[in-house]
């Protein structure tokens, strides 16, 4: 089990996100991970306390072990296949989500709203966008079919009341709207930021703060959010990243490609 060592005082935002997200994993889970913080967090969990956790990559890999210092630039390079159990066509690895073999989908986010919907397609109006973003990739599929963790920076411009465009569905308009739209399974479970950890109300499906990181106030989280946040009845304070957690991250990403 987890070996508790003393907290470390210096870490980057990405390292904080990876550590906090890794602690949400459970041994034995099958995790569909994006590149960057999601991959680092899943690998960290695997190394420290979840040896039976399996990572899936959208490129078609089941159960890889990433070589430290050789992090893949996307989920589709040969680096993603190192010491894996199996490689599949893309369509078939995504179909594992539809069939129900995946416990957690885990990705980064550009823009999120109060119901956990994600936008990675358009900033502004889709017909006349201010910025055309790269799009869904597998994001729409993953978030339509399984329980989601999103890790992102907590900024007002990223946390908006309603996203400009729903690329990856969260709880849509709240309540039972997700189920009614034909998405009976999965949904946004946790949002991890550099300030807090958030979940969603069981009834209204509105985002609510579950935990604050060490030294962060409620006001600070609210100030950096573009809509009124709910706070859970009992807010916990997360333990800061420990030296052993940071050591693993720095071994995996020695050139700080994803942890700068």
């Amino acid at each position: 089990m987890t070996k508790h060592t003393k907290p470390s005082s210096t870490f980057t935002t990405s390292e904080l996100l990876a550590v906090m997200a890794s602690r949400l994993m459970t041994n034995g889970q099958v995790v569909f991970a994006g590149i960057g913080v999601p991959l680092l967090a899943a690998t960290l969990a695997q190394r420290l306390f979840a040896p039976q956790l399996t990572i899936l990559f959208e490129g078609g890999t089941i159960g890889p072990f990433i070589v430290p210092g050789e992090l893949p630039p996307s989920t589709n390079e040969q680096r993603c296949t190192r010491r894996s159990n199996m490689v599949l066509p893309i369509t078939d690895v995504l179909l594992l989500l539809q069939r129900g073999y995946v416990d957690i989908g885990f990705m980064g986010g550009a823009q999120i709203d109060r119901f956990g919907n994600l936008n990675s397609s358009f900033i502004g109006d889709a017909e006349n966008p201010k910025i055309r973003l790269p799009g869904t990739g597998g994001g729409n599929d993953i978030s339509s079919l399984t329980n989601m963790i999103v890790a992102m920076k907590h900024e007002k411009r990223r946390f908006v009341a309603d996203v400009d465009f729903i690329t990856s569905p969260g709880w849509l308009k709240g309540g039972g709207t997700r189920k009614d739209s034909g998405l009976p399974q999965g949904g946004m479970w946790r949002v991890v930021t550099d300030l807090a950890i958030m979940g969603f109300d069981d009834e209204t499906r509105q985002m609510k703060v579950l935990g604050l990181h060490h030294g962060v106030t409620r006001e600070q989280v609210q100030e950096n959010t573009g809509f009124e946040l709910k706070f859970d009845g009992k807010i916990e304070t997360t333990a800061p990243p420990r030296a052993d957690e940071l050591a693993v991250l720095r071994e995996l990403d020695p050139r700080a490609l994803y942890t700068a």
Partner: protein
Amino acid sequence: MGIEPLVKSYSALRHETLTRDRGLREKVMTLEEAAKLVHDGDHVAIGGCTVSRTPIAMVWALIRARKRDLVISRSITSTEGDLFFASEVSKHVITSWFTQGIVWGVSKVMRHHTENKLARFEEWSHMSIGLRYRAGAMGIPFMPSRTMLGSDVGKQVKDEIKVMDCPFTGEKIVLLPALNPDIALIHVQRCDAFGNAQLDGLQFMDIDMAMAANKVILTTERIVSNDQIRRTPDRTRIPFFTVDAVVEAPFGCAPHECYGLYEPFFTHLDHYAKISSQDPVKGPQQYLEEFYYGPKSWPDYLAKLGMDALLDASRRGRSVHND
């Protein structure tokens, strides 16, 4: 070209296949000869994914041949999509994600062309693209699926999909139209002169794409004998009768990756990202002049990438065999 129906009629699909020469015949040719099989306005499916096993040599040949109005489809689109737009070979890309790669930031070239409405990036979810090729490969008109519901991704393509209540369960499902490309471009590690192709590592959507397409151009790192293929038929992934052209193109994905042989040419890709970000018009034009229009031949293109870069990418590429 007239406006074609979204889904090809079954009789048209079967007729096209019937009229293809499916005999066990040699079909080795040059990049330039293979480029002639692609016609202006064709729907061209691109194998590989992001910067992996992209059939760059064939992309290079199509851009040099100044093709026009190609409709491009691919699972995820990287630098080749930028270059299709910048060269005006295509103004319409169907894909799930379009940018060089996450580590290089959002493509300024894609942004320039789509935000100024010079070209279209038609976005589908990744699985939906895959299931569209699969339906095409299966000879059926559509595939039922459970994603793109509720989201705006589905709304953007609402005229091309159908949402229905499942006749068995009553659940809401999406029907995705089959995609049968006019031609698929696929790069493999090895194949024989007939087109029996063996590919190592990640397959992406290439097998479905080959089966769905009405023509396939294979580029290959090397052409091997039919005897060698017959020694390990379990490793053959694309059968010869789906293939119309075989082109030997060593380093045919450079500067992208080819599993087990070379990794992405990171320094070169950093350079492309830099010049295309600085100026999304002049940057890719300068790149096209230097690396696409300028070289006399494919080996000349590889020489421009540089021996150091080829050796470095190869050294990293072979590392997967060294665990």
